[in-house]
């Protein structure tokens, strides 16, 4: 794969810093939410925040946003598989 477009590749420093601040903010929210009793939604909220954080890391820090479509397909296949595994596991967890 060619890496001749390095400027475009990683995004600007401003973007990287903003994403970093965003990740720190989401981490703070995770910690805060852990202290609030949300009942059956606790796990769902924690997973949602983790998913958003993963999205930022994968797209920006791992450069997937700037890569060829084939890499996005690879990530999507892995992500969908993981989602289905989560879903099927919850059929046990919820109905047990």
């Amino acid at each position: 794969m060619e890496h001749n477009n390095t400027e475009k590749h990683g995004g600007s420093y401003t973007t990287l810093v903003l994403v970093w601040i965003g990740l720190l903010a989401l981490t703070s929210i995770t910690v805060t939410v852990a202290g609030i009793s949300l009942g059956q939604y606790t796990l769902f909220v924690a997973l949602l925040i983790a998913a958003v954080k993963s999205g930022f890391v994968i797209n920006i820090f791992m450069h997937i946003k700037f890569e060829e479509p084939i890499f996005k397909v690879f990530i999507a296949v892995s992500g969908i598989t993981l989602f289905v595994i989560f879903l099927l596991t919850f059929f046990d967890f919820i109905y047990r």
Partner: protein
Amino acid sequence: MINEAANPGEKSFYQVSTNKHTGILSWLLTVDHKRIGIMYLIAILSFFLVGVVIGLFMRWELMFPGKTIMEAQTYNTLFTLHGVIMIFLFIIPGLPAIFGNFFLPIQLGAKDVAFPRLNLLSFYIYVIGAILVLVSLFLPGGPIDTGWTFYIPYSIRTSTNVSMAIFAAFILGFSSILTGINFVTTVHRLRAPGMTWFRMPLFVWSTYATAWIQIIATPVIGITILLVIIERAFGVGIFDPALGGDPILFQHLFWIYSHPAVYIMILPAMGVVSEIIPTFSRRTIFGYKQIAYSSLAIAFVGYLVWAHHMFTSGMSDTSRWIFSLLTFIVALPSGVKIFNWVATMYKGSIDPQVPFLWVMSFIFLFSIGGLTGLVVGALATDVHLHDTYFVVAHFHYVMFGGTGTIFFAALHYWFPKMFGKMYNKRFAVISVVLFFIGFNMLYFPKFILGYMGMPRRYYDYLPEFASLQLVSTIGSWILAGAIFFVVGYLIHALYKGKKATANPWGGVTLEWHIASPPPMENFHEIPTITHEPYDFSQLKEMKYGE
């Protein structure tokens, strides 16, 4: 030992080093995919033979009720070691690491895999994992006795060396992941000009699907193993019910990897079958695209059936019927393959050479294994048969009758190409027959014993099971005899065998277009692909065609 020259004036990969060293160092530091494949063959075959010997001792113990040759704890250790060695050191890496490494680049028209150094690293990680398994046997505490499934809570209670043995499986996982990454990248990036996706041989397709499972599923077992080690060391309470943990969560995590791992084992074998049947039927494969897609379908649906190992574990009823339904669905793409193979043979010009006989044996044994899988995949029958010898028989028919048989098929099919020598075909036919008889004598009684209620992993049994246990033990001698016979005449062929021609079977995929054994970097110039993979009209124009 090996042909001095692949062809007059041409040196084979045995005679050209990829580094500055000669002798053993030229092998140990090689980055050539063929040499790495051969090193895997030696290592994996050695561990397989160790696993066979352990199995023989287990069967010897079970020959008569009560103690025969060993104590119960020794038996517990042996069945665990047999499982760990056969699963993690033989059958998971077996076909991809040996034949995938050797033939995937050649069948794609490439000079090597995408990351040759990473390939060598995978091999050494495999060796380190294997050494750790061996070390765990001799440390204080004694060898692991949990069974190869390492089920909680016993695996966090026993004082045997669980942590080190499962850490070895963790290390072996990295080897598997790196091999998977290498193969996916090779298929995407290194196909020869004209080698479109639907001109790739079906062994490449199945190895590609397998590589995806290796990449996506293996990390799950890695994390699970680390959690068990943490649980044993610090008693966190993740899985241990005494500390508020959930032992069924362990089973979920274990089988989320270990069921797809079953497809890591069988998919490459199905690819080999799709190579051998057209070659010996002289007929293009029936339903090429359906077989290719069914590999991907098996790889994907194979992720979604893991909890059928847990029908009696106490998980929810909803999960039980969902996973039972999904299990029946995965039988469909497997059925597509079986029907397409049979349809390929129909009206073909069949030449029943040794590799083809192994494949016939496979279709018979794997069909029994697959169909009995539906018996234990159905909820009601599984409650009766769970954890009995029926499951042991089913598993061995699928894995050994399936992948194990095809390991030998592949070895006999590609042996002339890999080593440039031909084995004694009469001996080879005798070995297939002995293998088939021994296999069925060893494992078929276990279906009946399981149905009668004989539990798996038990050291002793009731007197009414004695006669079938005896038949099974006698079968193990015949089967092991056949296996050692195969190894014997193949080693003999390396030294004394007749020189093999470049295309002894009349195959048409790319490996049969080059010399036996292949030269370093496989091709003098990268070929341009103009034919479908199983177009036998090529035979007339092939340089080495016969």
